């Protein structure tokens, strides 16, 4: 036991390894939120009139909405008037090669441990690197262009692909969907736009690294991915953020659309600053992610590894509208110290023969609270719908909590829904078995946890899997015994 205490102390003392600030000149919108802020952002982005109207509509809807209170996470009320809603890098140069990139940003890459050069060569990943709301560089755009794939910042898409944006933006997450989605719709600064044309299989993993940089800048990303008939894309989103004292709000919106026979695979590794060991600081991660399987035989798969943020509150969802469509959700959520997580998914079965699968693994340590909240709806029209959900929770230490809130609503007699959940700690017998074979407690626990999460990790693309395992060990290193 003394050993365990020591180990726990060590982890708790672990500082956030990715805490640093890059000094780049910033240009801010005036503090606080008003119609002028919305107009300012829209003007800064050179947006057409219809986009401004769209934002204002969202802003006006937001004014009438109330902050939701039902979630199982607690935080002091957010003062939306003390947040900067826009921070862009001042000098925007045309960049042709990586050498032209600001050395500070290059240094940031190095600290992240993912040298972009190497990654470019190794994985063939096109990186749309977002540094505080503004696209800095887009690699591989040319080679994607050949295939007709559009991968650009959403601001560029609004200017260059107005028809697609008009058709799909807000079609899955409407402006007035929820409080934070409305806020995002009004003030989103940038994000990614992906369009995969009919029959094209995207030849590489598309990846965006988000990074919250300026102090007091809430980050409002907007991502829109459209996969036309018979296309396929795998999209990666990974995050790290610098250490900071004041809580920062991140309210992103992600919309995915798949038409007939198309497939989108969306993977997230999230490791934002979780706050210090007293629970001070840290990111509020309030995200609306939703995909719609609009066409027949289409598929959307969400995979997430959530290790960071003071509060994680998100439910990547699938609306299974097309017949025979498939929705998947794989999640590992780790909370330590005073972190809180309320995450899960929604699977809305509308089309016939739709199938969905939910695998959620929660690990809580320290004084953290970890909740799974999921909804499975089988509508009257969804003949032969099938859902399987499994949510397991692992508790490490006696001061944390694990919660499960599944909602199953079935309105069709041919629907079949199976849900199972377990909560336990790491079995003494497992540990003993490993000890007997010469493994230390820590090695044994890390092995067992990795095995516990394997079902989710194996869904991740190769490079991400390595990073996810690294993050897991950083988040929990030694906190177990």
């Amino acid at each position: 036991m003394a050993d365990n205490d020591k180990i726990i102390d060590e982890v708790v003392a672990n500082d956030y390894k990715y805490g640093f600030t890059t000094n780049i000149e910033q240009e801010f919108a005036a503090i606080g939120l008003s119609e002028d802020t919305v107009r300012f952002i829209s003007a800064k982005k050179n947006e057409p009139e219809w986009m401004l109207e769209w934002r204002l509509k969202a802003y006006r809807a937001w004014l009438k909405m109330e902050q939701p209170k039902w979630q199982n996470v607690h935080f002091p009320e957010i003062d939306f008037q003390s947040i900067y809603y826009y921070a862009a890098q001042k000098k925007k140069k045309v960049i042709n090669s990586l050498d032209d990139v600001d050395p500070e940003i290059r240094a940031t890459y190095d600290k992240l441990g993912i040298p972009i050069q190497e990654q470019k060569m190794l994985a063939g990943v096109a990186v749309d690197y977002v540094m505080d709301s503004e696209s800095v560089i887009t690699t591989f755009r040319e080679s994607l262009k050949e295939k007709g794939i559009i991968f650009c910042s959403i601001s560029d898409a609004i200017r260059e692909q107005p028809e697609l944006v008009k058709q799909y933006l807000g079609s899955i997450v409407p402006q007035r969907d929820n409080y934070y989605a409305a806020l995002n719709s009004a003030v989103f600064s940038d994000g990614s736009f992906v369009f995969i044309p009919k029959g094209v299989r995207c030849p590489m993993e598309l990846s965006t690294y988000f990074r919250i940089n300026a102090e007091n800048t809430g980050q409002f990303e907007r991502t829109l991915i459209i996969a036309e008939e018979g296309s396929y894309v795998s999209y990666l989103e990974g995050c790290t953020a610098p250490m900071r004292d004041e809580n920062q709000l991140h309210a992103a919106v992600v919309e995915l659309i798949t038409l007939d026979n198309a497939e989108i695979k969306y993977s997230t590794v999230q490791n934002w600053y979780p706050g210090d060991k007293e629970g001070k600081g840290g990111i509020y991660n309030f995200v609306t992610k939703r995909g719609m399987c609009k066409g027949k035989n289409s598929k959307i798969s969400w995979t997430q590894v959530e290790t960071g943020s003071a509060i994680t509150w998100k439910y990547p969802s699938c609306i299974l509208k097309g017949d025979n469509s498939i929705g998947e959700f794989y999640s590992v959520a780790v909370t330590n110290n005073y972190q809180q997580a309320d995450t899960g998914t929604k699977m809305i079965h509308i089309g016939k023969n739709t199938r969905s699968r939910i695998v959620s693994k929660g690990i809580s340590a320290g004084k953290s609270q970890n909740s799974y909240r999921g909804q499975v709806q089988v509508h009257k029209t969804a003949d032969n719908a099938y859902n399987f959900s499994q949510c397991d929770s692992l508790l490490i230490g006696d001061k944390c909590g694990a919660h499960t809130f599944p909602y199953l609503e079935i309105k069709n007699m041919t629907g079949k829904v199976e849900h199972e959940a377990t909560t336990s700690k790491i079995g003494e017998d497992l540990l003993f078995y490993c000890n007997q074979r010469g493994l230390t407690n820590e090695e044994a626990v890390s092995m067992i946890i990795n095995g516990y999460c394997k079902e989710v990790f194996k869904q991740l693309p190769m490079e991400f899997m390595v990073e996810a395992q690294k993050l897991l060990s950083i988040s929990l290193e030694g906190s177990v015994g």
Partner: protein
Amino acid sequence: MSFTENIEKQFAEVSNSNVVDLRRSAFTAFEKLGIPTSRHEEWKYTNIKTKLNEDISLAPADSQVNAAVKNYIASLPPYAFRIIFLNGVFHPELSIVPDINGLTICSLKDAFTSHSTLVETYFGKLVNYNEEHFAALNTAFVNDGAFIHVQKNVVVKEPIYIQYFFTASDVNAFTQTRNLVIVEESASIELAEDFRNASNIMVQYNHVSEMYIGKNANLDVVKLQLELNNAIGIHTLESQVERDGKFSAATITFASPNTGTGKPLIRNNVTARLVGQNAHADLNGLYFGKENAHIDNHILVDHVAPNCTSNQLYKGVLNGESVGVFNGKIFVKSDAQKTNAFQSSKALLLSNDASINSKPQLEIFADDVKCSHGATVGQLDENALFYLRARGITKFEAVQILTYAFAHEVIDHVHSKPIRQFLCDKLKDELKVNF
């Protein structure tokens, strides 16, 4: 008589001032809470506000025993011991109260004066009237019910039936009934709470039971809701189990066809709080929904003390346009290490217009625990159906046989032999199976 006068009159009948104070604060709480809407998380799938009559009357309804009621009671199978309430009022002349040393059974109304110390210690202490709308209403306005006190080491072998009949003499009546059961150390008793609508008209009632299970004591309760056509019934059962105590509750609901205009609705809140080590709770339920019935089961097992175990098994069969709701919660408090809690909820949908909303829920604050829940919704196994049909059994019969097997598992958990037998027969009648 005005509403407040009526309340004051009711309160005046109770001589114990502490109880009056408690009821007054419950009334204040209810004034704040009101009747819940479907925006309330616990009533999300059961919109009680639209189902209840708008002007409910809380005055005790007429409880005259007329010929029809007499005939109805005569037609029932004979029970060894029965305590009969008509529209919430105790009728000693119809009841057969056991005369056993160490067992006290009387009406709650009498107990307010004759057993005032016990009532003061136990009445209203388990229900959370500051948050639970109907428990608050009941605590403030309860008129009558059963008071049962089993003294230390007393073992009662025969089950006791507590029967509530309703006759709908006043369509607006919202009858408040309440049982208070205290089982002391190492004592044991079996109870059946039986609710019946003896008329064809819609009745509304709100029942609360508070049950205390002492050290090493044993309490078996079966809630029978078999003849409840045209009823809106809200049931709350709050129990507290001490060290080595055992509590088992089975809720059996057969919502019968409705002939009136309203929609029948049964809501069951069952809570078991395990406050002493090595306590055990067994909560089971079986519900059959037909036509436009709405059956809602809310279960909570609260593990407060370490080394306790609990088991939940709920099964539902939904036909017609019936709606089933299941919400099963397991709380494990931070001191409750070595808890073992299990929950299983299964529902069969036999009609395309039926629906089920299931919300199994775990909230765990201790690490050395084993908790799990499983929830399934589906249809009968195709292979099993085929097997039976290949042996010359009609499809209808095959469905009935498999449904019987599905439902019977819950009845197996009823400990009392006569009640189990009664339920078995009832189930066979319901499904028209003969074997």
